[in-house]
């Protein structure tokens, strides 16, 4: 075991799969000589060469499009999109090609591309460096969508994503690259070494996609969340002094419905939290699913706590961010509903 922050854990995952499988290559803007603007690919070009860790032109659609062809030719590309906010020029290649290739070719062709993208706010990035567009990807059949909340999960899930023969979009909540963040920007920041999720084996391990994890157990309420919001929810629950299951779904597609169902059947109350805007956010699907699966057990309306339905504003980051106070208000609402 070693202490790693999420950047180091991702770097370690990449290093191990590249070492194990010579077909794995890394491709993206500034990922090579420089090691990535968040340093996730640091040192890998020096170790594996310019032909396996490849700097790319600034063209997200071209990166994903050519990665598809690279994947079809037997290599296994891990693409870095510098910010999730810049994934949109690549959406057509993801939606129309990457997600559908296996299906449309009757199972004959596929391309095992993994797309990594730092997402989320809380770093004063304004509307072009703070977005959480995960919901869009969850509507596309043929793609898996993942978002870890700890270095341990990041490494294990990234290894699974790269090794999957299905394409995966892997979102990295950049606010927690360096340490867990409980939603309070005024507290001094905590490093991952202070958190059990920062204990990361140096060796290879993987975490299967499609399995949620219950990070805290309780019986009054189920909180379903992912990414940075896992930590915010933990702090809010501790403040609220209630006993709650906190479920980190980790993999949005495929979704571990069973874990959600068991929890809400037990607690009868459910709160869903994410950073993206609420309307048609992934919380909508989570709410609809839980409602369908657990209707007869629900003692209160399912509550969603999410970003407001505006772009992510620079100056009002902490008014926009669905922090502890908003989760606590949500908890009160769910718990008091009758």
């Amino acid at each position, binding site marked *: 075991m070693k202490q790693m922050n999420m950047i180091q854990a991702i770097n370690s995952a990449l290093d191990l799969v590249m070492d194990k499988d010579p077909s794995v*290559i890394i491709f993206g803007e500034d990922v090579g000589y420089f090691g990535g603007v968040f340093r996730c690919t640091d040192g890998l070009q020096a170790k594996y060469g310019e*032909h*396996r860790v490849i700097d790319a*032109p600034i*063209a997200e*659609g*071209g990166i994903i*499009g*050519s*990665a*598809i*062809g*690279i*994947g*079809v*030719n*037997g*290599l296994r590309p891990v693409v870095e999109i510098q910010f999730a906010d810049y994934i949109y*020029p690549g959406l*057509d*290649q993801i939606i*129309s*090609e990457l997600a559908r*290739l*296996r*299906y*449309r*070719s*009757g*199972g*004959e*062709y*596929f391309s095992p591309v993994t797309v990594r993208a730092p997402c989320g706010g809380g770093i004063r990035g304004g509307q072009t460096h703070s977005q959480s567009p995960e919901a869009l990807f969850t509507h596309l*059949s*043929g793609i*898996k969508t993942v978002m870890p909340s700890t270095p341990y999960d990041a490494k294990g899930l990234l290894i699974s994503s790269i090794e*999957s*023969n*299905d394409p995966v979009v892997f979102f990295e909540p950049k606010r927690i690259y360096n340490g867990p963040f409980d939603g309070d920007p005024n507290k001094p920041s905590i490093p991952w070494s202070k958190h059990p999720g920062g204990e990361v084996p140096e060796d290879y391990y993987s975490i299967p996609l*499609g399995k949620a994890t219950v990070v805290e157990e309780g019986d009054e309420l189920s909180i379903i969340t992912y990414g940075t919001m896992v930590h915010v929810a933990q702090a809010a629950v501790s403040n609220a002094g209630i006993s709650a299951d906190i479920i980190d779904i980790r993999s949005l597609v*495929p*979704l571990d*419905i069973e874990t959600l169902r068991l929890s809400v059947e037990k607690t009868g109350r459910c709160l869903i939290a994410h950073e993206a805007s609420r309307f048609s956010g992934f919380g909508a699907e989570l709410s609809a699913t839980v409602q369908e699966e657990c209707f007869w057990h629900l003692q209160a309306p399912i509550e969603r706590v999410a970003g407001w339905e505006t772009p992510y504003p620079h100056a009002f980051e902490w008014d926009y961010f669905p922090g502890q106070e908003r989760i606590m208000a949500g908890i009160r609402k769910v718990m008091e509903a009758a």
Partner: protein
Amino acid sequence: MTPKSRLHIPRPPARPGDAPDFSYLALSQAGAVARPDFTTPAREIENLAHELVRVLDDEGVANGEWDPELSKEQLIEALRLMVLTRQFDDRMQRVQRQGKISFYMQSLGEEAVSIGQGMALESGDMLFPSYRNQGLFILRNTSLVDLMCQCLSNTRDMCKGRQMPIMYHNRQANLFSVSGNLGTQYPQAVGWAMASAIKGEDHISASWVGDGSTAESDFHYALTFAAVYQAPVILNVVNNQWAISTFQGFAGGERRSFAARGLGLGIPGVRVDGNDLLAVYAVTEWAAQRARQGHGPTLIEHVTYRGGAHSTSDDPSRYRPKDEWDAFPLGDPVKRLKQHLVKAGHWSDEQQAELENEMKEVVLDAWKEAVTYGTMTEGPQLDMRIMFDDVYEEMPENLKRQREQLMELRGVKS
């Protein structure tokens, strides 16, 4: 506001009722363009993007340095494949009209592109075809029955009923899955070639788009990535003058050739008579050698004409003169190759008639077999359960549940 407008609007030279006019097409004499060594740096051969590489002249005689000097057997085989492609198209067009398949797209008039290029490439080269490259599938020995079954979405459909007609693939033959989205395969082909280079292999890739599709972003991505990494790829623009109802001027073809589009990135462009099988073959072989020996990508513009409608959903008489094809100065690729063979004493009108009949028979036999595997309305039908396969490598729970739901609804045991 309109009268003062200074927006330039490209116009085709002729609309329905007008006399066809191809005076806008820059032509070169057959044999007039020199054939540089394939190692020549891009900037020394920019002329190839502006002139027109032609081998066959109007009399059917092969001229100049680009003559690939194919054997009699190769020429006859090329003719056979072009005729077969045309007969295949003809049959499929007609069965669509009869309601047996939902949709079809012919390659009428453009057969030399697929056949000439396919012949010049190696079987290990990976091809990313467009919807008008059925000739590549035929050339690489995809059985006609398989192609037809795809169009029929029947029990032997390679696409398992999931795709509209003509969206073929052939993994064994290194033919990628045709995409319905214009241009998307262009950067994929470049990526495939990059991987080949990374692996140190000798295989190259090739892809095709129409004139209209060059406006899509994927065209730009492909050219940029191909240039940056010097990927071993042949990028083809099949300029058949039209994109549905839109003249190629709307893709920016009014001032410069499509072959010239890569010059600004240092990608050599070659403009070739797309209806001259010999020229197409020669240019492709040149570009393939270039790519294979590490000199990077080539952009080839094939000047040709879309002889038929855009698709079976289209009626070109609404937007272009009915007789435009007849006036096309580069003629019909089948007739031109035949003329060449006849001129060379290798072929006769009788042999041509015989070949056409024979190919018609081959196609008809294939069709008769194909329908035994079912049509949209008759005969054996695909099991609808197959709809839920191949979304992912392994079927996830939600799809298993949905498959069950559907089976229950239809009263079928799952």
